[in-house]
């Protein structure tokens, strides 16, 4: 057992803990006001789903949470986002360190043009999380198992990650993201390139990951949001319209816009 696991167990005991707290977040892309005064509280060991029509700012908000928006020149973020009570946009915070704690899986699978093993080992390697080759092997195997990919690739770990099928690549990217043992995992439409079987596997995985991480998932599938998440946030035209327990949002939404989106009238 290494030290992350003990940390995890402690964190797991502390259920319903507040993980991320965003208040009054505004994002501008140049003149485009993409996100308007969004405030959300994201809890630990919970799957939170972001839904909403295309272009409403779901991805933008997700990228605020690990400061990936910093890499876009014209993007400006205002407001306060606290991770475990600390402002992540504070001057003293190193975005590189932050991204090691807040992992991300993208809509399109983006494995590096390296071997499967190296893809998964890359994060732990640059952060110096392992001390020996055997420890690294363990981390790689554990991550691939969690991502439901181990059985398919265990005999060909040295083959390039780009040679896998689209669905396998996406699970490889998930394995790569969880190998660094993040505290929060952000997933931007992780299933949009997957077939129903792989989607079911990933959904199962997300449910499992909940025990160790706080998961935030963007999805266009209402069914998926209803299946995997405990909390749901509905975005519309850059604003957060409604946020609450998934069961409430889907059965008893308070805002008429939420209702019409869920029933398929806008979006």
């Amino acid at each position, binding site marked *: 057992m290494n030290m992350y696991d003990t940390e995890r167990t402690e964190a797991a005991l502390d259920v319903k803990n507040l993980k991320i707290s965003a208040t009054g977040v505004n994002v501008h892309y140049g003149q485009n006001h993409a996100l308007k005064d969004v405030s959300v509280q994201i809890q630990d060991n919970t799957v939170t789903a972001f839904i909403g029509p295309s272009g409403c700012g779901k991805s933008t908000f997700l990228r605020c949470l690990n400061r990936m928006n910093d*890499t876009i020149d014209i993007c400006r973020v205002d407001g306060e986002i606290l991770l475990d009570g600390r402002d992540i946009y504070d001057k003293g915070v190193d975005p590189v360190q932050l991204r090691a704690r807040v992992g991300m899986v*993208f809509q399109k699978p*983006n494995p*590096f*043009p390296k071997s499967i093993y190296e893809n998964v080992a890359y994060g732990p390697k*640059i952060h110096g999380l392992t001390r020996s080759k055997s420890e690294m092997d363990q981390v790689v195997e554990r991550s691939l198992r969690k991502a439901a990919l181990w059985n398919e690739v265990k005999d060909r770990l040295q083959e390039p990650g780009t040679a896998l099928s689209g669905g396998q690549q996406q699970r490889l990217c998930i394995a790569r993201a969880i190998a660094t043992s993040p505290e929060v995992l952000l997933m931007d439409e992780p299933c949009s390139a997957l077939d129903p079987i792989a989607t079911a596997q990933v959904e199962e995985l997300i449910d499992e990951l909940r025990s160790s991480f706080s998961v935030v998932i963007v999805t266009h599938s209402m069914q998926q949001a209803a299946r995997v998440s405990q909390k749901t946030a509905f975005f519309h035209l850059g604003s957060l319209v409604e946020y609450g327990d998934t069961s409430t949002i889907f059965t008893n939404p308070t805002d008429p816009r939420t209702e019409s989106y869920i029933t398929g009238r806008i979006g």
Partner: protein
Amino acid sequence: MTLFAFLLLFAGAIFAYTLNLRAAQSIRNGGGNLHSLTSFHGMYAFLLVLIPAFVFLLVWLSFQGTVINALVQRSLPADVTAGLESGPLQLIMAEIASIAGGRMFGTPDEWKLAAADRLVNLRVTSQWLMVAFLLAIIAGCIYVARKRVSATFRARQGAESIVHALMVFCSVVAVFVTIGIVASLVFETFRFFQMVPWYEFVFGTVWEPQIPIREDQIAAEGAFGLIPVFLGTLVITVIAMIIAIPVGLGSAIFLNEFASPRFRSIVKPVLEVLAGVPTVVYGFFAVLTIAPALRVFGETWGLPIAPNTALAAGIVMGFMLVPFISSFADDALSAVPRSLRDGALALGATRGETMMNVLFPAAIPGIVGGVLLAVSRAIGETMIVVMAAGLIAKMTINPLDSVTTVTVQIVTLLIGDTSFDSPKTLSAFALGMVLFLVTLVINIFAIRIVRKYREIYD
């Protein structure tokens, strides 16, 4: 007269155009239902006249000189030409031609004057014949085109297929020119190898292409060993790449990932200017700036430095290749999908780590392709080395020594009075052949690598 022929040609084509246009219009006005627009009928006639007549003119103009010369030469008195080789015969023909042009030196022989007369006459006849044939061809084509005009004639497709054939011809021309160049190279090289055995050329370690001009002259027999010359090319190429690869890659990486947009917008155009500098100017730079600087440097450290060093030429050639490699590497890096970069950054990699571990490896095939193309440019580069490298071939890899290169030797072998049947001159073709083969192999490799890499991300 030639100008007149070309005017005639265009006039004929335009006449054919209007003729067919009118004919088609009158069919339409008479209630006929034309398949093609009237302008297509005109276009069809235009092309049908223009192309055959144009081809005829080109053929005539390119062959009339040879034919006339042959005729004149055959009519020379047999006692003068008997036993003459092609060289003196050519001199005689040149003299006749200049007499025909009105330039006489001294009092030429009777028979030369007569031949000059014949030459002038033949030329005039040829011109008239050309115009006559041209007229006949134009008239024939106009007739054929005009007869085709009818309501059902598909002039639209007809004109299109003529243009189509024309384009096929253009691409075939490019291929044939290539084949022709290679063939002439191969042919002359073959002649060279009949005089100097190929193994002496390929494995020889002495390069002294001087051949005694007079029988009794004391001079080297002439040695044609490729190795010292090629070694010079290699030394300079290696020096150039030692400079160009790090500087080029470094600037590409910096510009691509780390530079602010403002800095990039200034430096990129500067690099492009550097790429546009003529190689002669680089040559000046090597001779006037780098070489003296090296000499001063050498004197202060007590190093023996030759006036024309491989180092000076190599350094300047390296700088010439910097923008080349830099822009290739920049393109290769930009072609790496943004998602890979985001993936690495999202794992908590710094920008430097992202560049070194992800972007650069992903771009390596493209970069290697660019570097190989740069190598083949360095090997074939002529002007800088002609100005800055030496002339004497030495078996050395000392960059402070004077070396010569394949291209320099080709230039010096072909400069001045040359006759194309001595091994000295022909050896230039063998050297050219070596250059051609080496760069061909490198380019094939480079293009393959670049292609393979494109397949991954497109």
